[in-house]
């Protein structure tokens, strides 16, 4: 059970305080409700580029990192298709340093030309390092537009192409900040050894006079029902052929999300799962095979992926894979298998709750979903899932008309 105290400032900032009396550290986690899905299709990669710029100085403070480091603290951030999340971890007694820095960059950025120029270059190097200069690095740049024809999940957080980052202007930066970076679009979570009233006072002091803005309505392009099997084969200079089957799955807030999550654990079970035993052990078609979900807020993807053994064909793989997926539709998983899934979910939960930073980030995320209390309700949701739910879900999931399939064919084999 993770406990917290929640309040909202008049300017719209939602605040969650999680007390931990055992820690000498404080965590200040700021989640902004903006991700790559909120970008203009012609200016992609912007939420992520912007995350970099948030470290380039704010209206009253020339440099973000140095004052935090001077307070013994450290900071980082990440951008997903849905959110941008910033966190600071520092000695408890210096928490005001983090609140000072975070509130100032919520108030306004410095918008320096030099910072924009350098971070454009840094992000272009990141693009090269992670997406271009790695075997299979471009898979998500290819698979997303195959699976999503109109929804902005069709591009990765790094952006569609390097030119979008190269073309980012200071006007774009200002306008992006104005739309998305304000108290009403943020969830501030603080964790540490304090009392409720201390946190209320500190947050009012540093954030109270940031002007509130109305949270903009989010109107995203809605992905129409897929109703077709989409396939793409690309040749690449990679050591092994790889395959990616992406099935459309339920959005994060729905019950189906949890069923899909548990189903992915069963389908992707290493060493003893049906896919592993059939495709790897019995037929020796693959080196590796996995199943996992992308936990997206909107309709997401359930992925089955892996790499072919040399000399094996995509045709043989495809037939064998669909055959195994079909069994999840036609048979109920056994009671022992269901219990294993629940037991493992219970252990995972205990480990996810380790560490102050994890708890703070998760509280923010559940608050974004609608209620931070959700963090304590997940176990009951997983335990209520029965074998028939998994089977019914598999029936709607594992159909060619719900699938986008990408083959990366090795040119060297």
């Amino acid at each position, binding site marked *: 059970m993770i406990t917290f105290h929640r309040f909202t400032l008049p300017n719209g900032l939602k605040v969650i305080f999680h007390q931990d009396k055992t820690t*000498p*550290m404080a965590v200040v986690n700021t989640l902004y409700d903006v991700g790559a899905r909120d970008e203009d299709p012609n200016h992609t990669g912007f939420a992520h580029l912007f995350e970099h710029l948030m470290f380039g100085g704010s209206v009253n*403070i020339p440099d973000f*990192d*140095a004052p935090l*480091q*001077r*307070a*013994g*603290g*450290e*900071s980082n951030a990440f951008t997903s298709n849905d959110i941008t999340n910033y966190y600071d971890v*520092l*000695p408890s*007694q*210096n928490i*005001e340093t983090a609140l*000072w820095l975070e509130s100032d960059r919520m*108030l306004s950025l410095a918008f320096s030309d030099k910072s924009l120029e*350098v*971070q454009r*270059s*840094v*992000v*272009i*190097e990141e693009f*090269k390092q992670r997406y*271009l*200069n*790695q*075997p*299979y690095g471009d898979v998500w740049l290819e698979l997303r537009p195959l699976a999503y024809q109109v929804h902005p999940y069709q591009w990765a957080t790094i952006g569609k192409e390097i030119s979008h980052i190269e073309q980012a202007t200071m006007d774009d930066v200002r306008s992006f900040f104005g739309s998305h970076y304000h108290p009403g679009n943020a969830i501030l979570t603080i964790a540490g050894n304090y009392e409720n009233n201390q946190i209320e006072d500190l947050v009012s*002091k*540093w954030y*109270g*006079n940031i002007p509130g803005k109305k949270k903009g309505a989010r109107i995203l392009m809605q992905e129409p029902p897929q109703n077709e099997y989409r396939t793409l084969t690309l040749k690449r*200079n990679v*050591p*092994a052929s790889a395959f990616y089957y992406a099935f459309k799955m339920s959005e994060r807030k729905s019950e189906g999300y949890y069923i899909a999550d548990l189903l992915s654990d069963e389908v992707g*079970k*290493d*060493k*003893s799962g049906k896919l592993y035993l059939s495709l*790897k*052990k019995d037929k*020796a078609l693959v*080196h*590796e095979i996995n199943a996992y979900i992308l936990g997206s807020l909107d309709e997401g993807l359930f992925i089955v992926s892996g*790499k072919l053994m040399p000399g094996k064909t995509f045709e043989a793989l495809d037939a064998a894979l669909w055959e195994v997926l079909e069994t999840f539709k036609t048979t109920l998983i056994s009671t*022992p298998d269901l219990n*294993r899934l629940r*037991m*493992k979910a219970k*252990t995972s939960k*205990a*480990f996810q*709750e*380790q*560490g*102050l930073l994890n708890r703070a980030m998760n509280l923010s995320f559940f608050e974004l979903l609608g209620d931070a209390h959700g963090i304590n309700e997940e176990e009951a949701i997983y335990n209520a899932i029965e074998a028939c739910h998994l089977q019914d879900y598999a029936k709607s999931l594992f159909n060619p008309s719900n699938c986008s399939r990408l083959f990366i064919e090795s040119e060297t084999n």
Partner: protein
Amino acid sequence: MTDTINRSQAPSVSLSNDINYIEPERHLTPAGVPVYLMRNETSEAVKLELIFDAGSMYDEKPVAGLTTGMLLAGTADKTMAEINDMIDDHGGYFNASVSADYAYLNIFGLNESMDQLVPIIEEALYHANFPETELIQLKAERKQHLMVSLEKVSTLAQRGLQEHLFKGTPYGRINQPDDFDGVTRTDIQAFFETYFKKGLRKINWVGNPSAAQLDRILQCFARWTKEVKPLPPINYTPSIERIEVKKADAVQTGIRMGKILFDRSHPDYHKMTVVNTILGEYFGSRLMSNIREDKGYTYGIGSYLGENQSNGYFVIATEVGNEFLADTLVQINAEIERMRTQLVPQDELSLVKNYLSGQFLRSADGPFAMMDLFTMVEIRGLDYSFYQNALSTIEEITSEEIMETASNHLNSEDMLIVTAG
């Protein structure tokens, strides 16, 4: 609360080096293997880490890695799938990994499941029979994994560094894809008998067992002994040269620079920690500030002090756009030279001291982190005074001492440089 806050004025800060380093409980298995227990009183989460003297340096072929990968791959009467199902029944997870020095088997679960989980794993481990079919598949998998890795300039540069820095020693051996073919089941069985069954160095346990559970788990490991002899001292003769590894079509170049240095027991180690931090260990370091934040040549650059059982070393690592390679090398050398010849300004020094003090505090957060801190010093024959000494050295060090330390131990001319791209 007052409405008039001065946002241009940083709040005052204070630092404390008062970190509560918690000693684990010390127990022994019936065979005399040490078991260190760090109590986790706030959560039911448990980690049991078995550390074996079974690192990759003990065999010229890639035997250690393959053995480690097959520890729970079957016994005479149970298949790998059956063993995994039994572990899953109790909500357990495990992973196994290997470094040059040690092999690790980590078991994760809850306090309530340890009494079932540990005997299942111990039994499967002790009777591991390394089925031929599993070995064939694992070899193919590892070979392909390596081939994928060899497509990355970061891997190519890192391997070049390892090969040339540790030349002629067990640490300098690097595997080629075909090396996996030569490993037989007999090699693996022999390695397991010698380095695992007789090489259980210690067990680290984060959890909260009852006295009875503690006793049962200790009994569980009665048949594992600790008999592997320590290594003879290794004499390093690194080649100091410029190595260029070619990789067609790469858009970035991997860079590694390194030299043999010293380990944690050296009197200058803590001072060198400060030098390393200023140069390349944190986000505001000189290498990051210059090469990423000023010039935008890279997504990241850093330096670190590495260590194995017989020595320590210093490394600078980055990947940069090909067009920036030449100037990056110039800038790295300039930053090293600046560390050696110019005093660190007071402002930067005080920032780094505070940052490091916070870093020590952050690294001590919770029982899992505390166990890591303990084992990092224990495995080198040291104790928590290592951290206390580090904190006082950091607090007292002067700009003059930093320059002297850098000047004594860092020099561009005696560094191996590897580029891959």
